[in-house]
């Protein structure tokens, strides 16, 4: 499976070879068709990227107006290195990565079972997909109530099972990040499972028939056929999953606002808080630049790694 950024490269290579038979009418028509998209992307994405990079070298507060801009070179970045709240946010971001293999594993198991070993496949697909399509704000508010420390249903259940001091979940700095990760696992399973089911369906059936003839058991078939042939799918999900952890915002904004005491602050949350609550635009832009660099590094890294890990 291709991610858009990989496809970009192959498209760039492909189009170059066949350009001799162009009529000028084709050129005009082509540009007309893509121009609405191009204008939108240029104004709303490309220009802002440049502006973010430029602003990351400035010390500027919204309320000062244009005259208040003070160019400080790499000053913002130096400050970030000593900013405890930022370092904690980066660390939380990396902790958050552990959610990805967990939901990928659960999704793969569910996909294998649902694809071959149950009736009512359509029901299962819809059921596990529900959290993914639901309004994240509504979902976050429901979980907030479920996690309520003293009278919330989850802790009532735990107490009735004999656990006297159940965790305070999102109110406890030690458990807050894990609680959020649990919810993200829950909402991500549906998407990952659907992609895995699509991956399973592209595995040729005769491989399994041949394995049956050789007398292979279910476990052998899984480890020798299913798992290796799913590796392109797994890789795709790993990359999109890792990148998506850097974008987790809604659930933090609704449930914890980065707290308690910064324990659920992720880079994106800290960026928002710095820019739109504290109005420190230049400093927030430098956080954005770092965020951008992280995602860029992951994307470049995936190309390098892909050739080695993935069986096509």
């Amino acid at each position, binding site marked *: 499976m291709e991610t858009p950024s990989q496809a970009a490269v192959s498209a760039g290579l492909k189009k170059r070879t066949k350009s001799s038979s162009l009529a000028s009418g084709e050129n005009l028509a082509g540009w007309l068709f893509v121009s609405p*998209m191009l204008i939108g992307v240029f104004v709303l994405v490309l220009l802002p990227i440049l502006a973010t990079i430029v602003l990351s070298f400035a010390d500027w507060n919204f309320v000062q107006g244009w005259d208040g801009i003070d160019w400080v070179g790499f000053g913002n970045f130096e400050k970030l290195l000593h900013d405890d709240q930022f370092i904690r946010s980066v660390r939380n971001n990396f902790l958050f990565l552990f959610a990805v293999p967990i939901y990928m594993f659960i999704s793969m198991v569910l996909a294998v079972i649902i694809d071959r070993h149950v009736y009512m496949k359509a029901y299962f697909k819809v059921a596990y997909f529900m959290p993914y399509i*639901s309004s994240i704000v509504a979902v976050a508010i429901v979980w907030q109530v479920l996690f309520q420390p003293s009278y919330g249903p989850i802790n009532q259940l735990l107490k009735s099972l004999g656990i006297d001091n159940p965790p305070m979940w999102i109110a406890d700095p030690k458990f807050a990040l894990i609680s959020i990760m649990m919810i993200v696992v829950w909402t991500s399973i549906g998407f990952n499972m659907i992609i895995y089911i699509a991956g399973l369906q592209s595995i040729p059936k005769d491989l399994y028939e041949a394995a049956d003839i050789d007398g292979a058991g279910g476990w052998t078939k899984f480890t020798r056929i299913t798992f290796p042939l799913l590796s392109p799918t797994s890789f795709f999900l790993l990359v999109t999953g890792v990148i*998506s952890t850097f974008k987790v915002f809604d659930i933090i904004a609704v449930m914890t606002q980065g707290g308690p005491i910064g324990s659920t602050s992720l880079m994106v949350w800290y960026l*928002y808080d710095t820019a739109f609550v504290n109005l420190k635009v230049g400093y927030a832009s430098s956080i*954005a630049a770092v965020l951008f660099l992280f995602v860029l590094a992951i994307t470049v890294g995936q190309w390098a790694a892909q050739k080695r890990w993935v069986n096509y």
Partner: protein
Amino acid sequence: MPNQEAAFSWRKGILTVIMFAISILFLLPFIWMLVTSFKIEKDVFVYPIEWIPKQWNAITNYKEVWVGEYPFWKYYLNSIKVAVITTIISALVSALAAYGFSKINFKGSGYVFMIVLATYMVPHQAILIPQFILYRQIGLFDSHLGLILLGSFSVLGTFMLRQFFMGVHQEFIESAKIDGANHFKIFMNIALPLVKPAVATYAILRFIWTWNDYQNPLIFLRTDKLFTIPLAMQKFTSLSGEFYSLIMAAAVSAILPLLLIFIIGQKSVIEGIALGGVKG
């Protein structure tokens, strides 16, 4: 496993039952939300949980949410307006671009497509600040139009629809050209009808994503009467304080239209997601 379709398999049956139980557990937060929205407030946290309310209060709760002090219907209209218009513009812009990139052989298209796709990996949060400043400057801040424009230029939509346009045979297009049709006619009369199911799939996904979008309205809207459902939901929650039955009725109301659209279009949504590997 030959002839597994032919006869009822006990192994499959038992697994189905087990998986069904797990799926119910998985859906418990939704079930709890729905049941709670029907209860009177003092029964909300009764333990053991009453999965069937002893005292029904559904009508009062939902009436309070929809036409009470903070009436949801207003924000529903906002959400419908924003989501419908965004979906239409975005589908159109994406389809035009996708056709241009796949069916017209114009100079530089490969490079341009590469640049457009490369912007996909930019996390939206990294460009929020310049967008915010730009919107303040040109007067799009705190308006539905601004919100709609933010969702209208979808790289993902272009990428996804391009995959489908590439499946349209080049001969159709060449023969139409010989008959004197220009690209616009070919697009409207031949190519677009052929990829209609893909456009529908994308439109459903875009509608769901726009409906659920929280971050853009949070940053680009200020005026309460312009709020869309996710913002209204949050405000309703803070206004309602401890009235959890009402909050759950609001949550059900926020999710319900999506659920209906999803159940109606589930086959094409699931297939579309699987085909495009699409992620909001």
